[in-house]
């Protein structure tokens, strides 16, 4: 599983939760990210792997089963690593890079992003992560909304997610994070989409 976003979006907390849930479910787990520049608005990505035995902390190109795009452009950027049939959850949220702010380049449209991902064999699911998070009063909860939606596609019980969130999040924010997580599950269940993916890299 790969999480792609922009510094400050909470990708490290999300990847920590994802890794701890895997460990709790009995998998060997590795997670990897490079965060030297993350606070300065640069792109950040986290690799999380669950398996019986994990060697490489980085996922090989072509073996990413789930891509969580915390930001639309970053989701498109990581289309290159997807496995055929990979699930791509994209938070409908845009953070313009400097060249777009200056009017020198254009930000790709939603249709273009979908096309980039489907060309690489990925299946796009848009999630109103930031929208829901804003309703809950804190934009940085968007990542946990995405985790909620992802949780229904993975072979891990809801209890494992909730206990991990409670353990990793500062005490006064636990309730909000649990609400965001459940909201992510709910929008997915309401749509009645089938849940079949369980293999993970």
């Amino acid at each position: 599983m790969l999480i792609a976003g922009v510094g400050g979006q909470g990708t490290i907390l999300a990847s920590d939760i994802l890794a701890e849930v895997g460990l709790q479910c009995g998998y060997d787990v590795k997670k990897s990210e490079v965060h030297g520049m993350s606070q300065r608005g640069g792109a950040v990505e986290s690799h999380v792997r669950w398996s019986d035995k994990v060697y490489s902390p980085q996922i090989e190109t072509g073996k990413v089963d789930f891509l969580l795009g915390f930001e639309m452009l970053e989701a498109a950027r990581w289309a290159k690593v997807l496995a055929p049939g990979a699930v791509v959850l994209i938070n409908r949220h845009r953070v313009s890079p400097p060249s777009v702010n200056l009017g020198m380049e254009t930000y790709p449209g939603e249709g273009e992003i979908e096309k980039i991902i489907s060309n690489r064999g990925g299946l796009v699911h848009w999630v109103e992560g930031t929208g829901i998070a804003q309703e809950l009063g804190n934009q940085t909860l968007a990542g946990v909304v995405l985790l909620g939606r992802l949780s229904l596609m993975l072979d891990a019980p809801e209890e494992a997610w909730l206990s991990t969130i409670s353990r990793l999040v500062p005490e006064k924010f636990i309730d909000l994070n649990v609400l965001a997580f459940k909201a992510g599950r709910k929008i997915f269940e309401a749509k009645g989409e089938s849940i079949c993916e369980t293999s993970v890299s």
Partner: protein
Amino acid sequence: MKKLMTGNEAFALGAYLSGAKVGTGYPGTPSTEILINFARYPGVYAEWSPNEKVALDVGVGAAYSGSRVIVTTKHVGLNVAADSLFYASYTGLKGGLVIINADDPEMHSSQNEQDNRYYAKFSKVPMLEPADSQEALQFIGTAFEISEAFDTPVIVRTNTRLSHSKSVVEVSGEDGSKADPEEVSTRDEAWYERNIPKYVMVPGFARRRHPVVIQRLEKLADYAETNPINQILPGNGKLGVITAGVAYQYAREVFPDANYLKLGMVYPLPVDLVKKLADQVERVVVVEELEPFIEEHVRLLGIPVSGKEVFPRCGEFSPEKVRGSAAKAGLVEVSSPDGSVGITAQLPARPPMLCPGCAHRGIFYALQRVRAVVFGDIGCYTLGALPPLSAMHTCGCMGAGVGVVHGVDKVGVKDRTVAVIGDSTFFHSGIPPAINVIYNRGISTIIILDNRVTAMTGHQENPGSGRTLQKEGVKQVNIERLLRGIGFDKVDVVNPYDFAEVLRVLKDHLDADEPSAIVARYPCVLFTRERKPSCTVDLEACNQCGNCLRIGCSPISKVADGVSIDPALCNGCGFCAEICPRKAINASGGNAN
């Protein structure tokens, strides 16, 4: 119980469990978190020293007195500490001294990707290299045993991938976060054993120590043959892989059936184990990031081996890089899929940039306006080199800019020239070149960007912060008094958000015919979490001149009828309002006042 830990967390726990009582270092990605974590354990002393050389000397002193010590540094920090590494190798130490050195293949946050395994060979000290967090924890214990048994400093080498990845570690204790006190090694009380011929490296004594160091290496080579830190792993007898560290993990995925010599100790190398592996297989390859360090040793043994003609010498490895290289060389049949197929769109890049509200922005905008040539340094402010500010013209290493500007000024360059250096970098290695400007009759201007914290590596304390690593309140080093004490007669302190004042002082200093210094002081707003109401744009007044876009602040973007400021990102510092000629931007409470 099983616990997920980063490599850096595991190093810290390993040091604590081994009974290390002292930890020293200077912050540097990716090594910083080792000391931060170590400092939290009970009964330890940990400090951020002003630079890596000081850190190593402090560590040596504690180890001379019998304490177990870790010293942490990034790879280029060991350049700064190299002088001390070499004498410590000759003298040896009473307590164990383990230097945890973090390389940065790919230069994720560094100026080069030097391979510090050569420091082990150069200084004649052993080097260990773990491959995951479990080994990170265990190897620290082994390193202390080696250090004390062989009377030598030991370097444990990590890299960005290992330091910042999490993997599973077996820990004991209630919740795994606190070690069982009974498990922690206890040490005797500190005392200094006087031994002038061993510890005073004047030529006569040092000549006696060099043969001891050579003999030590020979004994260490024997140790490398028998200690289980180096392992031969069985395979199908076709391909034999020699590897170490994170490269081992990639190799295991690409060559699942190979025989392995997995090295935990990368210097000195176990010659017999290398020969034994070579006898078991048809072909030997070395999988190692960066330089052909192991490969060169194997070649010297007369064993046919492939290494850098197959795998790249530049950059970090990844599974697809190793597999792709192996496929080209015919070592495996199938390469990883080509990630570029089907992607035609050119997506806008997202480089890091100065944070919204950053105090450095005002200085670089002013330097751009006066068309100064800027000799820079290493820190957040190096981002001032990127467009649209583009206001830094050199950056080599910590402390370089102040020396470089003096050299430029000495040959009579006609441009306005200035050195820019951060507070932590000034304390690190900016003071001797500042003394040099005075001593050698220079005329250079130095700007110290003083945000009261070592920001780039994640806000570590420094001698100007008023706090230590272990959060004790202390005296702040007064930069302007220090400069005056050196001999700078022209010293001014400015608020970097007050653009008119910055411009006035800057022009005054640049045009002065004497050495001068400007301290641009404002505490890092990201660290103090200072945030004011977002700035807003009056589109009626805006004439789309584009000045505010040229300060490179991410909340400000160009829209059809002017500019827009994203309230979710804006810090409210008000610098854009300061420089708007039409007064079209409103800041309710900027930082200029």
